[in-house]
């Protein structure tokens, strides 16, 4: 457990200016800490830092606290906080940006299934243009612990039985086009150099 004290050396001014330079995120500076984002978040109960705290930590530049937080991986993009925020801080979009940066900088728990899902998802879409849900789920389970599969046997059987578990590998026709497009769009340049 990290001690509950921070010195100025723990702050990364670069991180603070990066986060407030995200589109709309300059409004973090106007946050009045009303806590609407936290209280409206359906996943709040499982978070280590509330969205409000996370925004504040980001604004102050506590990079390690923010990127290491479990909170960003819990966000399901339900946009409740974004809609409620009286200061119009785009909390959900900031969460996305934090996920991207955490993945880029590889700062997250290794077996956390969420980034694994994101990576596998991307791989499948990039290769084939579509997602085959059954394959995606199986890959996810393989990578994050086979033991998890046992709890799912019954559910899996239900799906197979109702014809909702297909082993077909979905794909688009113009896979080459898609690959060229993803190549041509270039990189984000959102994260700092």
């Amino acid at each position, binding site marked *: 457990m990290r001690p509950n004290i921070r010195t100025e050396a723990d702050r990364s001014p670069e991180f603070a200016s990066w986060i407030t330079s995200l589109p709309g995120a300059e409004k973090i500076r106007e946050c009045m800490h009303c806590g609407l984002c936290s209280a409206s978040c359906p996943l709040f109960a499982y978070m280590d830092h509330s969205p409000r705290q996370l925004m504040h930590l980001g604004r102050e530049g506590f990079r390690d606290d923010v990127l290491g937080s479990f909170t960003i991986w819990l966000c399901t993009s339900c946009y409740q906080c974004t809609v409620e925020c009286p200061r119009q801080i785009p909390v959900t979009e900031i969460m996305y940006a934090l996920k*991207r940066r955490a993945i880029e900088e590889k700062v997250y728990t290794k077996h956390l*299934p969420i980034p694994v*899902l994101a990576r596998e998802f991307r791989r499948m879409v990039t290769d084939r243009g579509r997602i085959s849900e059954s394959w995606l789920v199986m890959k996810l389970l393989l990578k994050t612990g086979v033991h998890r599969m046992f709890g799912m046997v019954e559910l899996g059987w239900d799906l197979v039985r109702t014809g*909702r578990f297909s082993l077909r590998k979905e794909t*688009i026709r113009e896979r080459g086009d898609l690959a060229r497009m993803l190549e041509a769009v270039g990189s984000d340049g959102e994260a700092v150099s």
Partner: protein
Amino acid sequence: MKKLAYYPGCSLIGTGRAYDESLRAVFEALGEPLEELDDWNCCGATSYMSIDKGKAYALASRNLALAEREEADLLTPCNACYLVLEKTRRHLADSAEMGHRVRRALDAVGLSYEGDVRIRHPLEVLTQDVGEERIKEAVKEPLKGLKVAPYYGCQIVRPYATFDDQYHPQTMDRLLKATGAKVVPYPFKTRCCGASQTGTLPEVGLHLVYRLLNEAKARGADVLAVTCPLCQFNLDAGSTTSNRSRSSTSHRSSGWRSESRPRSSASIAPW
């Protein structure tokens, strides 16, 4: 009505197969059979956006370009696809920089997108373009006596309120009433179902599902009606799993606190 290109999305050809089949049947019955967008690709969902913004927008925009080539609007039944496509449409219009990058990428494969495609959801099309009157006429077996809790999910009302009220959406209520069903008041209409967390962190996701189901039951609903394949999967699969694992769902909040008063302790939070 401008021509609609049907964009089922990956879930509707997977776990959401039933949704796909019934949607096609409904539009067939209304005399407006669905035509699928040729060679559509995955919208990218939330996962792709978590990795690379530019590629995520490029991915989604290919579908917009394909629809524009067919001079059609996109009809998508999946809430996630709906939001991703709508967000892409808006972002390409608002952000010169992203618009430029994405158009360059489309150009590389001979596609273009001028911004003439609307993103439409079956709820909108059925209530606005088709209209409740025509639906009432087309109903063969009214759902009389069936009590339904309408569940809209998050992403068709947030962050953008496009065709329905953000806090108290009504389109599904109207549609259900047109089919003869009784709509029960359901305050969690737009509360999150946990999305992919049911797969990645089942104990977290299932808890959200439990709340939704429990509330529907408390309101006297026989069934929940959903508009999104992922919501459906979660609520459907969760209706058995969450009950079963309820006893083992020990994730009582570290942050949640409830005021406890003798009078209302029974009716407080379900966890």
